[in-house]
């Protein structure tokens, strides 16, 4: 009986082990590279955003107003993801989602600039 209980307890509370092949958390070296790449991404997007700012602040068409709304939604998502990534920096899912939001924002800004009359 004691053996059975002990065995069960050991099974459900197995000792913590090191991970060799999991990708849900980034290692420090990869994390630094990702953070550096994200900074480059942000700078590039900031330039696009500066160019698109006049159109977005006073949208002349319904399409531009729609883009403006979408960018606000994306900025909100980016803010949330950055806050979470600040607490949980190596979480690959957070980084992947943040990257996806940056890509979406870049694509949207490009479309705004293409829509320029």
């Amino acid at each position, binding site marked *: 009986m004691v053996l059975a209980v002990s065995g069960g307890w050991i099974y459900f509370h197995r000792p913590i082990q090191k*991970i060799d092949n999991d990708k*849900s958390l980034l290692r420090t070296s990869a994390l630094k590279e*990702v953070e550096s790449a994200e900074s480059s*991404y942000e700078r590039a997007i900031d330039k696009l955003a500066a160019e698109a700012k006049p159109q977005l602040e006073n949208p002349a068409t*319904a399409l531009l107003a729609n883009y403006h709304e979408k960018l606000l939604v994306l900025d909100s998502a980016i803010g949330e993801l950055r806050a979470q990534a600040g607490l949980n920096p*190596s979480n*690959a899912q957070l980084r992947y989602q943040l990257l996806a939001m940056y890509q979406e924002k870049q694509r949207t800004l*490009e479309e705004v600039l293409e829509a320029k009359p």
Partner: protein
Amino acid sequence: MIRHLPNYRRQSLRRAMAAGLLSAMLLFTAKPVHSATAAQDQVSRDFQQTVTLGAGQSVHIEHKFGSVRLHGESGREVKISATIRAQASSHEEAESFAQKIKIEVQQTGEGVRIKTIYPEEEKKWFHFSKNSSWSVSYDIGMPSDAPITVRNSFGGVEIAGVHGAADVENGYGTLNVRDAGTGRWNNAFGSIELVGAGGNVSVSDNNGSVQVSDVKGTLEVRNRFGSITARDIQGAVIITGGNGAVTLANAASAIITTSFGSVDASNIRGDLSIRDNNGHVEISAIGGAADITNSFGNVIFTDVHGRVNCTTSNGRVKGSSAMGSSVTIRDSFGNIELDTISGALDAETSNGKISVRDARGSVTLKSSFGAIEASNVPKGIRAITGNGGISLTDIGGDTFAKTSFGSVLTERINGNFTVENTNGSVTARNVKGDARVNTSFAGVTLESIGGRITVDNQNGAISVTATRPASGCRDISLKTSFSSIRVRVPDGLGYNLTARTSFGRISSELPITSTGSIRGDSLSGTIGSGGCQLQLTDSNGSIEIAKAP
């Protein structure tokens, strides 16, 4: 996209793309290095628990920072398997944090509640080490008929073979569902893919693509900024999109509302309603009626079995094989091109050309500042435009054409022919019925006219050839000024002639019997035995009467 941008912008975009690519590569190829340094120590802990679910009970999951996989199984057990991962600057820190992450499994009267609890209080201490991170991933087997409720964020959700009612809300991750039942599937900032659902389905996304297929019940989809694709839906479909393309194929019926994105709908067994703005609309194989409202985009429809009602602006409309009772088109600033229309057709545009071929019902076409062309219209036509030409061929019934500053050209009209024109020429050949033409400042040429002929022109020549009617004769009345009148009538028919002009001659190839005084600018008499009226009135132009060939 980039080719339209200036060089400096292209460079910045390329840098951004390169950075993005690098990030992606790192994310997907980074191999975890077995930690030699304290900063990269990572540990994992497995959690497993099995509980039994009663009949009618549900599974509730509340989670974040990791993936959730759910799969339906036979039996009544819920088999919970989770992997808790933590990374910190030292093995001890990582181990300590991993131990503090709790998975709470509660059995209540409603079913099983599974919740991930992170050590919120310890986070501040934990984050003295900047590189500390964590994630928890679930793999849960459960009774396939049990209802589920999932609340997840910052991780993907995958569900397969769970047929109980589902209520799933995810955020910042993908949502993939296979072989489900009735369900409400919500996501924000992530895609949704649903393949196979046994009941009614509601899907909502905020910013991500939505793909749904093989649904046995009805489908309702809302997506704020992203594309929507739905296929093989047995029930009715309601789609509300925005800023993304909508594609729907094989559904019972559909109501689609979107903007700033194209709509492509095909094989809809019942009615289809589309409201779009700033998008291209294309529909085909519609079993019921099609009701389309659009702007700033083209509309193309084909093979529609019910009535078609299309209102659009600033876009072209092209339609073919409309087999319903009616087709009504209202457009502005766009051309209309229609082919093979079975029912009544009423098409109107401003600043656009209208082309129609094979329209079997009554046809009314209106344009301003655009030309009208129609052919093979057996029941007759009304074609009205402002500043455009009109060309009508093979019209089976009465024909009315009205324009100004445009020419009218018709061939083979099997009914009466009426033209109201100003500043445009009129040419008609082979008209079986009466021809009545008003115009000015342009010529009128009528050939092979079988019925009465009435032309009222100013400052334009008139050339008319009447054909021999089946019986008797037909009246001819031609009037113009500052130009000539030439009329050809069949030999052997009788007319009462009244011809008058000024500053011109009157000549006749046919013998005319006249009594009283004969003047050079007027002539009254009889051709043959008389009978029908031949009234020719001109000023400053000659009049010529000849035999029809």
